[in-house]
């Protein structure tokens, strides 16, 4: 359907000619525009891979619909591979600045690029003459070529769509991030010109390719025909609907289709083994499990029923023996994400063990993700399970709930890191940290403690709390380390804290409500906060202000504990002048259970607030004090001041004090100082000192032997 006017009236000749002329002009001018579709985007692309020259040749159409009320004068397209074109791209410049951890290093002759060779409207109007590279983000970089702005012949009216016909060719960067090739193995992502997201009243949201940022795009329907040499096994987003072998050219063309996704990636390698399985909900979820989770969510088991999903695994031959581990992890992820947040809505999921040395592991695309493994694994270490659960989980947080990863990366990475830990805990329990040397697992030799993902996450994210807030444009973080620790782990720790603070039930409903409400949408943190407030019926603005919008650390501690015997007599002059002090007005923090002739111990516990962040209004942190006779005393502190002191008088000594004994405030950057036992365990400290000593002796002995 298009927007041309249909005349029904029979006009007189002159009128008819004029009208005809006007009509032709209109048609001529506006024939590139059509009536908007119900989705902002539709792609129909054909691409051929030329492995020998590591090039792709492509052509096709992109239909963009203006679903806003604005007149849109231009189209802005991401040409991501130009980030790998030279040393002056924004990404390369940002990479050079990194000192702690090099994510990307330019390598001679490994360059890649994306070049549009032709871009016209459907009726042949050439758009290339007005095309220009822009760099919307600060600081401007005139050398960056990852965003192309193309002016339209005239502004596209609300409700109109434009069909872009294009041809492009691209060189696969050998050393790219999330994309790459090695010999004849290819992982191809961010490979086509992709329009940004048009935001009503604000214009295009189309950022450059940054080192510390992922992506943002609109939901679209894709149809992609991929032609490769016959020996390559191909996987892609969506469903394979056709395969045509051409015996003459020795090439095969695969057609993939998928609706309602916002990116499209594919891969090809001769070393893939393709294995298919079904996730059968009936076998994976018991009626009791449905019942339990339905009760938690206050839904009926019927409402949370999961559909079956076709699972496709493309695994390198060398890792074939690990297929079962891959499927087991994927099924756990489909099950728990589905039960907790909502059923997986697509028919297939493709899990890719990325081609060797393509630098594309551990990355998410809608209906397809890459994991990554090693040939020799350890049973006690959850690798590759951790990455499989995480990357599948992105179908929920990024794929379906499609927040802007440039601007608020925590909404996908933080929520998904939180969810990953929960799934791993439910499906596997704690696991050991890996110890590897020269590609060999060494956990059989050096024991590591069994821990949960979230325990490690809260530990490593503490040090960056004061460096950056969690909510910040991805490229504005202090460095890659601060970006990843804040956005992934600190955000996840904050969510863990919220869950414990609000309770399991309330939290489960919050997460499901947020997910289902914003499926196929682009929510922001404001939407998330709104859902938290609505479902929990609590105003948690302070929480987000302290932990998400500000770079503050949170550390409450037991600063000091003192115990002494109360003197039987006090020295000084005591006369019997009357006082107005009645026994009831004794400070309510003092506790006396005094019996005549008994020794009385005075115990004072001083709590400190070392961090800058504070608890919000009407929120307290609890202190539990246990005495030698087993009696317990509980106190609560609003945590506003820098310190507070609680005094106790008892006929027995204190045994131990624990701050936040219910372990709600996991966001506390130092939990070790939340415990204070009058008699600490000598054993642990002695064992530890013994270990340190042994390590140092061994080191010195090695030096001795070498000299």
């Amino acid at each position, binding site marked *: 359907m298009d927007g041309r006017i249909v005349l029904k009236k029979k006009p007189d000749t002159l009128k008819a000619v004029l009208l005809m002329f006007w009509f032709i002009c209109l048609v001529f001018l506006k024939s590139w525009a059509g009536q908007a579709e119900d989705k902002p985007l539709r792609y129909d692309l054909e691409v051929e891979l030329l492995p020998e020259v590591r090039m792709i040749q492509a052509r096709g159409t992109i239909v963009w619909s203006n679903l806003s009320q604005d007149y849109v004068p231009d189209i802005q397209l991401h040409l991501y591979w130009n980030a790998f074109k030279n040393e002056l791209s924004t990404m390369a410049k940002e990479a050079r600045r990194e000192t702690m951890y090099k994510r990307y290093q330019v390598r001679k002759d490994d360059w890649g690029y994306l070049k549009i060779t032709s871009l016209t409207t459907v009726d042949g109007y050439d758009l290339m003459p007005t095309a220009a590279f822009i760099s919307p983000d600060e600081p401007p970089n005139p050398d960056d070529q990852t965003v192309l702005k193309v002016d339209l012949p005239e502004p596209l009216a609300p409700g109109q769509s434009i069909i872009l016909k294009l041809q492009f060719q691209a060189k696969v960067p050998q050393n790219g991030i999330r994309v790459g090739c*090695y*010999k004849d*193995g290819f992982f191809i992502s961010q490979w086509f010109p992709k329009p940004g997201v048009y935001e009503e009243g604000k214009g295009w949201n189309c950022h450059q390719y940054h080192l510390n940022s992922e992506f943002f795009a609109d939901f679209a329907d894709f149809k992609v025909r991929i032609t490769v040499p016959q020996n390559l096994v191909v996987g892609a987003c969506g469903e394979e609907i056709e395969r045509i072998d051409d015996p003459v050219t020795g090439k095969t063309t695969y057609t993939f289709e998928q609706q309602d996704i916002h990116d499209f990636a594919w891969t090809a390698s001769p*070393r893939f083994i393709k294995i298919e399985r079904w996730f059968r909900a009936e076998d994976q979820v018991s009626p009791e499990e449905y019942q339990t989770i339905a009760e938690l969510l206050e839904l009926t088991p019927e409402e949370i029923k999961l559909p079956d999903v076709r699972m496709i695994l493309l695994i390198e*031959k*060398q890792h074939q023996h690990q297929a079962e581990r891959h499927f087991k992890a994927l099924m756990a992820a489909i099950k728990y994400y589905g039960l907790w947040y909502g059923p997986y809505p697509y028919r297939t999921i493709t899990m890719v063990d990325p081609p*060797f040395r393509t630098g594309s592991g551990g990355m998410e695309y809608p209906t397809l993700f890459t994991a990554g493994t*090693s*040939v020799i694994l350890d049973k006690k270490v959850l690798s590759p399970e951790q990455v499989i659960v995480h990357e599948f989980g992105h179908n929920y947080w990024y794929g379906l709930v499609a927040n802007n990863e440039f601007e608020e990366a925590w909404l996908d990475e933080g929520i998904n890191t939180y969810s990953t830990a929960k799934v791993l805990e439910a499906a596997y329990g704690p696991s050991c940290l890996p110890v590897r040397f*020269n*590609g*060999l697992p060494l956990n059989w*030799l*050096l*024991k*590591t*403690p*069994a*821990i949960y993902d979230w*325990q*490690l996450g809260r*530990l*490593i994210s*503490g*040090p960056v709390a004061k460096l950056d807030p969690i909510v910040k444009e991805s490229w504005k973080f202090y460095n890659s380390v601060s970006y990843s620790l804040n956005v992934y782990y600190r955000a996840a720790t904050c969510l863990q804290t919220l869950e414990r603070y609000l309770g399991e039930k309330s939290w489960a409903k919050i997460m499901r409500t947020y997910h289902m409400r914003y499926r196929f949408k682009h929510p922001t943190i404001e939407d998330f906060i709104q859902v938290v407030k609505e479902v929990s019926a609590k105003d948690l603005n302070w929480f987000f202000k302290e932990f998400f919008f500000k770079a503050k650390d949170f550390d409450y501690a037991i600063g000091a504990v003192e115990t002494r015997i109360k003197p039987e007599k006090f020295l000084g002059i005591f006369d019997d002048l009357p006082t107005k002090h009645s026994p009831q007005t004794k400070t309510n923090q003092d506790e006396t259970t005094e019996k005549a002739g008994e020794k009385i111990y005075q115990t004072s516990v001083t709590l400190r607030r070392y961090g800058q962040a504070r608890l919000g209004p009407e929120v307290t942190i609890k202190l539990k004090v246990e005495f030698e006779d087993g009696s317990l005393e509980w106190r609560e502190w609003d945590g506003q001041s820098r310190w507070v002191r609680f005094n106790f008088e008892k006929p027995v000594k204190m045994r*131990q004090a*624990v701050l936040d004994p219910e*372990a709600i405030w*996991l966001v506390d*950057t*130092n*939990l*070790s*100082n939340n*415990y204070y*036992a009058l*008699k*600490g*365990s000598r*054993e*642990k*400290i*002695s*064992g*530890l*000192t*013994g*270990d*340190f*000593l*042994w390590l*140092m*002796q*061994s080191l*010195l*002995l090695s*030096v*001795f*032997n070498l*000299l």
Partner: protein
Amino acid sequence: MSLGNYLEAGLNRALSRFKIALYLWLIISVVALIAITPIGSLVRSNLGHLTLSQDLSMPFELNIVEVLISNQNIFAPYTVFLIAIVLISMLLFIFLKGGLFGRMLNQDNRINISNFLADGSRYFWKFLLSLIIFLPFLFIFFLLFRLLAAPLEAWSDGAVTEWPVIISANLKLLLFVLLLAAFKLLLDLVRIIIVTESKKVWPAYCLAIKFLSRHFFSFWGLYLLLGLVVALICLGWLLVGQQISSNHLAGILISIILAQAFLMFRLLARQLFIGVEFSYYSKRKDKV
């Protein structure tokens, strides 16, 4: 003389002089204690008030990491302190090596701290010089290693699976150890000659190289065989150590004792090496 004879002679020599290992252990332990004091007191002051019975929100090991993370600012000065300790101990160790070789190769097996230290000072300068002269050999060692490792690297660079990468990395490690053993043999031999034949350093090197040019492969083979046995015992030791739980006092005590016994074993193994090398050298040197 058969392999067994060399081993037996070396073992007898090492065991009859086990006091040397004790002295070395003591001195190394004192240095190690000094080196860990800052980190130990940090951990004690931060974690000394935890108890085993508490239901901590993390395993204890993570509490240690947490304390280290929140006291990151001590790392830079502590590293400087450690480097200083290692540098000073290097000089001390050359001195101790004098004591070790001196007492090991002495005719009578009367060993006390004073003659041990006397040997240390007697051979200090010669041993230091022997180490300095060894540096060019170390350079040759690295050159040779790079050369021999190059085909392995090329193999791994062109790999299409992980296997060549893993195999070549571990072969390189093996190559490194084998080569280093060969060069280390030279230094040991030089010192044996210095001590037993009262030679100056240069003549000792000449003599050692001459000896090795004749007997290198069997001498190297002996060294490697011995090394393999010691390495296997070490591995077994570590595996046994892993099985001991550190959740109660007895387990912790056993772990500590085992760890210290392991160090004693390593020191005795070092003595055994010297003993075996000496018996091999003294039997074969006349055949040069």
